[in-house]
């Protein structure tokens, strides 16, 4: 199950809306919450959501936070990472919230299941929150599915700016019980691809090195780790640095 991976990635803490650096995504976060609570949301009837943005902008984080929020509010919820979908159909739990991550990776089986889910959503009172890497018009999916996604409320997930990234890094380190000084965080931020996943993976490597060598986390240590990783960390796949 892919959920486990995600939890690992977040350093052992489940993302929540409270622990989310919302940045410029205020309207989106508000909308995700009203979706879960089925609160009146102005003149619009409740609608499905579609979130898109470049890798590392926080789509998965927001989905997991939505799942957590739904659970807290006793709303059935299912998370599906498109890449790891193995079933034949999506759950038909009434009133469930279906979270479909990275829909651009959906194979024909999942596309079909998703198409059916959209058609049955009204009757089952389900809501779909789907994420992808492009706006709906550029999604390379079946046209009947693509247009259903396009009928949702569409949000561009705005990435964090540098100050927010710094905050994220320090929060993330703290959750692991690691002391990350501002100068080290800044050093990392200026040298690693500024995608939260990469940053987090690098800090994890730094943490392990510090524990192995019993040395404090300093700029000097960060420089060593960076040098050992070849100084070209931006070429790696997300998360590879975290592997032992």
């Amino acid at each position: 199950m892919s959920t486990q991976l995600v939890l690992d990635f977040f350093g052992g803490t489940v993302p929540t809306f409270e622990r989310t650096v919302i940045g410029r995504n205020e309207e989106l976060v508000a909308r995700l919450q009203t979706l879960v609570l089925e609160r009146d949301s102005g003149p619009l009837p409740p609608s499905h959501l579609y979130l898109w943005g470049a890798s590392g902008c926080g789509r998965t984080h927001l989905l997991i936070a939505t799942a957590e929020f739904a659970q807290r509010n006793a709303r059935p919820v299912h998370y599906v990472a498109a890449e790891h979908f193995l079933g034949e159909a999506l759950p038909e739990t009434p009133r469930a919230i279906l979270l479909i991550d990275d829909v651009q990776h959906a194979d024909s089986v999942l596309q079909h299941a998703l198409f059916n889910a959209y058609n049955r959503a009204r009757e089952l009172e389900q809501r779909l929150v789907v994420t992808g890497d492009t706006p709906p018009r550029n999604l390379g999916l079946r046209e009947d599915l693509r247009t259903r996604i396009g009928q949702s409320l569409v949000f561009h997930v705005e990435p964090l700016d540098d100050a927010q990234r710094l905050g994220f890094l320090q929060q993330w380190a703290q959750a692991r019980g690691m002391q990350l000084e501002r100068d080290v965080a800044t050093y990392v931020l200026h040298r690693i691809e500024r995608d939260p996943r990469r940053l987090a993976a690098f800090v994890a490597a730094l943490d392990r090195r510090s524990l192995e060598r019993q040395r404090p986390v300093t700029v000097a240590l960060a420089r060593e780790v960076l040098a050992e990783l070849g100084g070209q960390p931006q070429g790696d796949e997300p998360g590879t640095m975290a592997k032992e």
Partner: protein
Amino acid sequence: MSHEAWTACCERLRASLPAQQYNTWIRALSAEPEEGGAGVRLRVLAPNRFILQWVRERYWSKIAEHLAELGIAQAELQLGATAKGGTPPRSNRPASAQARASAPDVESSEAAPADSVPPAAATTQERAAEAKPRPARSAPKRRPPPLAEDVAPSSTLEALYERTRLNPAATFDTLVTGRANDLARAAAMQVAHNPGASYNPLFVYGGVGLGKTHLIHAIGNAIFRTDPRVVIRYVHAEDYYADVVRAYQQKSFDAFKRYYRSLDVLLIDDIQFFQNKARTQEEFFHAFNALTEAHKQIVITCDTYPKDIQGLEDRLISRFDWGLTVQIEPPELEMRVAIVQKKAQLLGVQVGDDVAFLIAKNLRSNVRELEGALNKVVAFANFHSQPITLELAKEALKDILHAYNRQLTVEHIQKTVADYYKTKVADMHSKKRTRAVARPRQVAMWLAKELTPLSLPAIGEAFGGRDHTTVLHAYRTINELRLTDPQLNHDVHVLLQVLRG
């Protein structure tokens, strides 16, 4: 006095009901004072039995309550219409939509959302069916279709309606017509007036998201309004297939056959999904024959012309030609504008021509995305408590329309900046440090940091092997200059716009 009370009552309902419900049910009513007797009496008139019963079941207690507060002690709901038509005003409530932005709880006490039909209590028989192990389908509302014998005379209208699986929002009233769907709509209305007696089957085909499903729901809703006793069923081809599979697993083909042959009107959507499903096609073939022989109406939608459907038996395809085949085409610009305005009206919001035009111009191929775009604008305006203007619409649609999804490359940024400042791309890599060359280079570095996730060393590398501190310096310099140099700030702004599409 009594008339004013009725108007006031409608105003209250308009404020408390979703616009769609108000427009569909309350606007259809009229009222007239009743002569004689003590106290003020009011007769509320419903134009047909269907509306009468629906209003009685769902809204009457609320209406009576409002009227009592307004001084009408006795009110009665009856079939009929007033001569001069005391129609209450349409619900387009920009004012209340605004008000609700600041007081989000106004409607929270309201029951169901406009597009959902409340669940009817499941019969014991259905519950028993639920108890059987059915791994893939555990949802109570997706129970097997009720058999015709279940329809007890005491069934409420709502329960009858729920069995149709129709969407109450998809009616002929809410369908926008234009050249693209004129013929299909006319044929559909014909069928709705004379089910089983005009075109059988009616075969509607057209591309994705053009309103085929809306049209067949409209047929079903129109027939139900005329006579709720007609047994109507909307079914998506995928769900019909699932029913066949279930009948197969549970060895309940007799019940399955009996159910589908008991229908007066079968509305089946997206028949192309029958491709290569032999058993489903066979079952449908027999159901088709039984229904048409009994002069029951069948309406079919498909994404292609019958002869072009792949993997469908010839005997089925030839039967689709027996009635009338009509096409729905993509709507032209004027029709798209009209669709946006109609949908806005149904939401109870006001959208200017310029905004409708902006949406219609940018989303060409299907109605679904048109609706998505309008919803986005409405949600954005609501969230920010602002009126819907052209500027606001442009801002709201950024998320849908802008194509800056493709990962920008440093090369593309360098070329764009060089073009803008009329310098050479080679200068981006060169060691030259004159102002005329260095400033555009710094701007390009700033943009690279802002618009790509690349690390600073990687950006430095792309600018002729410079150090990451140079990139950082450029970034800070431009940030400072943007505050003091309006021309530079303007340049950066324009470049951002260009690069983001």
